């Protein structure tokens, strides 16, 4: 088989070369990205939130789960030196809960976006590459998905099947992929007839080789930008679900903290202010990263 020959003769050499090319283009990408101050700010904020999530057990000053139900002098305490962001209706330290809450938000955001990217990219690639009936079937499905109000679908499924962290991540990830599929399909459609793809085909490369080795490295960028924006929207969706009382009450989630605040914000504004502020900051960071990557990948946009 010709395609086997191709694989054997390039082998290690080719892998090395492609690594070099990739490293070079990544350096170029990074150089452009670094110039964008907003994008760098977004990235540093995400790094900060990430460290906060990982180091939560070490840096949080109190136990986020520790309640003081009997002690009325410790509930609804306004922010002071001991409790930087006050305490809630059970006497739990809001600051510590804020730190722990970063875990759920980042986890849900990243995993859901990763699931969506995996499903969306694969289906979009297949759809754009093969075209015809396969394309029609997949795109019909995608169109239908885009008309269904996704938030209510997610909410209904989570309400009925339970709101464990795994469920929430899976359901969000499996409902938001259609936009990624569309982007990926459009890219594949435009690359399918390019000369380098025809060249690869003429020397006998198989479909899988062309899809993953030739087209995908060129076509993947819009989907990656979209994934970064989807991290933000998945975090917003998770917080909305928790706010409505879905989700796992044993985890600390910023949305759940706002649900607590709903019944007590008239006497404890700090319970409402801080969790929402954190959600906003995290989502802004991922949106800034997405915009920054978009600008760095499309140099033409900037020069207009």
């Amino acid at each position, binding site marked *: 088989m010709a395609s086997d020959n191709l694989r054997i003769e390039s082998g290690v050499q080719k892998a090395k070369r492609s690594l070099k090319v990739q490293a070079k283009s990544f350096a170029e990408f990074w150089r452009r990205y670094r110039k964008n101050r907003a994008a760098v700010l977004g990235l540093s904020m995400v790094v900060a939130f990430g460290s906060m999530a990982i180091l939560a057990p070490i840096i949080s000053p109190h136990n986020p789960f520790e309640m003081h139900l009997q002690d009325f002098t410790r509930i609804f305490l306004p922010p002071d030196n001991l409790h930087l962001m006050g305490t809630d209706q059970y006497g739990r330290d809001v600051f510590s809960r804020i730190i722990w809450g970063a875990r759920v938000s980042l986890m849900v955001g990243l995993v859901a976006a990763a699931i969506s990217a995996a499903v969306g990219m694969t289906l979009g690639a297949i759809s754009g590459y093969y075209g015809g009936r396969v394309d029609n079937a997949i795109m019909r499905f995608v169109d239908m998905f885009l008309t269904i*109000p996704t*938030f*209510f679908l997610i909410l209904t499924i989570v*309400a*009925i099947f339970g709101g464990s962290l795994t469920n929430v991540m899976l359901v969000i990830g499996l409902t938001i992929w259609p936009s990624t599929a569309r982007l990926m399909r459009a890219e594949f459609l435009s690359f399918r007839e390019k000369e380098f793809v025809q060249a690869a085909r003429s020397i006998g490369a198989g479909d899988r080789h062309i899809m993953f080795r030739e087209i995908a490295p060129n076509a993947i960028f819009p989907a990656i930008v979209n994934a970064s924006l989807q991290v933000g929207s998945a975090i917003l969706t998770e917080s*909305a679900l928790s*706010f409505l009382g879905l989700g796992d009450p044993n985890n600390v989630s910023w949305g759940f903290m706002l649900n607590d605040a709903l019944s007590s914000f008239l006497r404890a504004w700090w319970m409402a202010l801080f*969790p929402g502020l954190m*959600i906003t900051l995290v989502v802004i960071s991922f*949106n800034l990263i997405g915009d920054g990557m978009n600008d760095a990948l499309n140099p033409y946009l900037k020069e207009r």
Partner: protein
Amino acid sequence: MIRYIIKRILIAIPLVLAIVCINFVIIHSAPGDPVAFMISGVENATPEFMAMKRAELGLDKPMYIQLLIYLDTILHGDLGYSFIYHQPVADIILQRLQATLLLTVTSFVITVAVGIFAGVSAAKRPYSRTDAFFTIGALGIYSMPDFWVGLIAIIVFSVHLHLTPIFGIVDPGLTGWDYWTNLLWHLALPATTLGLGRLALYSRLSRASMLEVMRQDYITTAWAKGCDERAVFYKHGLRNAMLPLVTVLGFQTSFLFAGAVLTETVFAWPGIGRLLYQSIFFRDYLMIQSLFLVFSILTIAGNLLADIAYAFLDPRIRYK
């Protein structure tokens, strides 16, 4: 035009059916059997009662018969009976629907009007300092959870400034003029909150769309033949820039209703969004999936309206 509208409506029907089928699948794959679903909220159902319900749903028959039975009941407007409210589900939803529509439509009108105006203003002086300020502001607002904005708005405007009521839709015992002013007074904060996130999006989109249109040749012609700024921007520019916006407005309906659920929960607004929140609290599964159906139909209707508006704005579609 009428043919176009009819065609659009015909396309919407299979979508509604698809959503009914999704609902059917959800009910049947849920833990426990569908009867447990129908009677969620009943503490001590007798076996006879359960058996009666089972026969009603046709659980002993093949799956496709069950689906047909389900479709038949739904199409007759029968969403089941809620044992928590002791009323048919459809009646409860209809009673609450008005409040939700009032909130969403008001917020929609505010958003579109202000958003387009802001977008056009930004497009008049692109890349200026004001423009940059709005860009950053829009990104910030867009990243905020609706319900959090609502909570903070109540704390600031209702609790500290005493400008607006804290929650509810209208004070009891009012009639005539007083009733309407009181309603508006209650409506102001939730409608603004709900509109804010989308306002950020629309102003950005209309700015982008305007910038695109203002590069076209016919705009140069308009300037050349001596039109004043107003005529160029609003008559020649905005009319064409509106087209992509209308499509986005259609897609945004689902986010509008999702936002309504959260806003109604914060402001204790007695619509179907708050009903959904209460149903989650009571684990009223029947109500939750009925509301999924209702919100889906509202979204599809919103898309349909956007399509029809598009045809009004763009004669090329009308006469095709």
